[in-house]
C-alpha cells in the first residue's frame, strides 16, 4: 500500500507541475470554446446512471465526481 501511496503522490505532483508549466492566461472573452457544453470537465446528467452501475460491477470507484459509497448495488 505504501508503494502505491508513493506512486499516487508522484502522479498528482507530476501532473500538477506539467499542467501549470504549460498554462497561459485566458481572458473571459477568449473562453467561447472552453464554455461549450461539450467541454465540461464534470459528468453530464446522462452519465450518472452509467457511473452507478460501473461502481457496482467493478471493485473501484471514486476520482470521477461520482459517489464513494451509499446504496447497496448488491445484485
Amino acid at each position, binding site marked *: 500500500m505504501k508503494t502505491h501511496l508513493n506512486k499516487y503522490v508522484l502522479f498528482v505532483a507530476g501532473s500538477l507541475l506539467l499542467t501549470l508549466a504549460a498554462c497561459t492566461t485566458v481572458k473571459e472573452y477568449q473562453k467561447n470554446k472552453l464554455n461549450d457544453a461539450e467541454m465540461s470537465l464534470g459528468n453530464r446528467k446522462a452519465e450518472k446512471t452509467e457511473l452507478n452501475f460501473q461502481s457496482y460491477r467493478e471493485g*473501484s470507484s471514486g476520482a470521477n465526481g461520482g459517489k464513494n459509497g451509499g446504496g447497496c448495488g448488491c445484485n
Partner: protein
Amino acid sequence: MKRIFLSAIALMSLLNLRAQSTGDSTGFKSRKLKIDEINLVSSYYSQSGEHAAVTGGIGSQKLSDIANTLDIKLISYDKKLRKHTFDAEVGIDHYTSASSDRIDLKANSSASHSDTRIYPSLNWTMENNRKGNGIGAGLSYSSEFDYQSLGVSGSFSKKTHDRNGEFNIRLQALFDQVSDIKPVELRTGGNSGEDESYPKQNRRTLAAALSWSQIVNERLQVALMADVVQQSGFLSLPFYRVYFNDASVHQEYLPDTRFKLPVGIRASYFMGDKVILRGYYRYYADSWGVRSHTANLEVPVKLNPFVSVAPFYRFYSQTGTRYFAPYGVHTAANDYYTSNYDLSTFQSHFVGAGIRWTPLKGIAGIQKLSMAEIRYGHYTKNIAMNANIVTLNLRFR
C-alpha cells in the same frame, strides 16, 4: 414514454410559475429564488452473466433496472450578490434480479426477487464571484428493503486570481445500515426469512474528494482529481454465499476496514471547430489488494450548432482482491473469503454513443424543453458478463 410525456407537461407548468428574469442589460440581478433548470433522467439497464455472488460465484446474474431521477436547480442572489444554488433531486430505481431471488431459493416468488430504491438529496452552494470562492453543503438519503444510507457533505472551492484555475475540496460522510439477511440455509430456527425484522449492521464511509481544474489555453482544460476514502464496519454482504472446497456453504466474510485511493485526470480539448476530445484516466488502489486502470475517450462531433453526436469508449482493467476465489476453492484456513466476481481480476469494455439536441427554439417547438440527450452503451467483461444501458435526459429551463 407516457410517464415521460406527463412528467414533461408537469414540469412545463412548474416552469411557468418561475419568477422574473435574474439579469438585464444593466447588470441587475434579482434576489428572488428562481428555477434555473430541471432535469429529468430515465434509464433502462439490463445485464446477464453466469457468476452471481448470491449463489457463490455460479448462477445467473440476470438483472434489469429502471431508474428515474428528477433534479430541480434553483438560484438566487443575496444582498452581497453572492449566488446561492439549491439542487433538489429525487431518484427511484426499480429492479428485478435473478440472483437476489436465490437468497430464499424459491425462484420468482421470494421477497428478494425485486426491490425499489428511493434516493432523495439536497445540495446548497454559495459562490462569491468577487472573491472567487464558494462553500457548499449537502444531505442525501437512500433506502431499499435491506439497505439504508444517510449522507452529509461539505465543500469549499477557491478560484485563482486570473479565474483560470480552481481548487475544490469536498468532505463526505455516509452512514449505512445493512439488514443481516442470511442465505436461507444458514438461518437458525428454520424460518423462511419473510415478514420479519432483521438485525442491522453498520457501515461508515468517510471521503475527501480533492480536485484542481485548470485552463491550459483557449482550447484545452484539465482537471486532476484525488479521493481518499476510509470505510469501516460491516463491509461484506450477508446474503453472498461462499462455497468452500469441502462443499460447505458460508456467508461472504471480508475485513471490517477498507482504505481506497483513486486518482484521476480529465482533459477536454476543442479540436478545430466541430470536434471535441474528452479524455479521462484513473488509477485506483485499495487495502484489499484491488488495483485498477480506467481509460475513457469520448469524441463529441458537432453536426451543426444545435446537434452533436458523441461516440465513446471506456477500457477498465482490474487486479482482484486477495480475498477472492471462485466457487469451491476457498478453504477453512482462509481468514477472509468472497466469490463476488466484481472483486475478481478482469477487464471490461464499455462502448456506445450519445446524441444531444439543443435547438434555439426548444425541442419540437417546446420553448422550455431546451435540451434532449439519448445515450446507449454496451458493456462487456471478459468473465462472461455483459450489459446494456440506455439513458434519456430532458432539460427544461
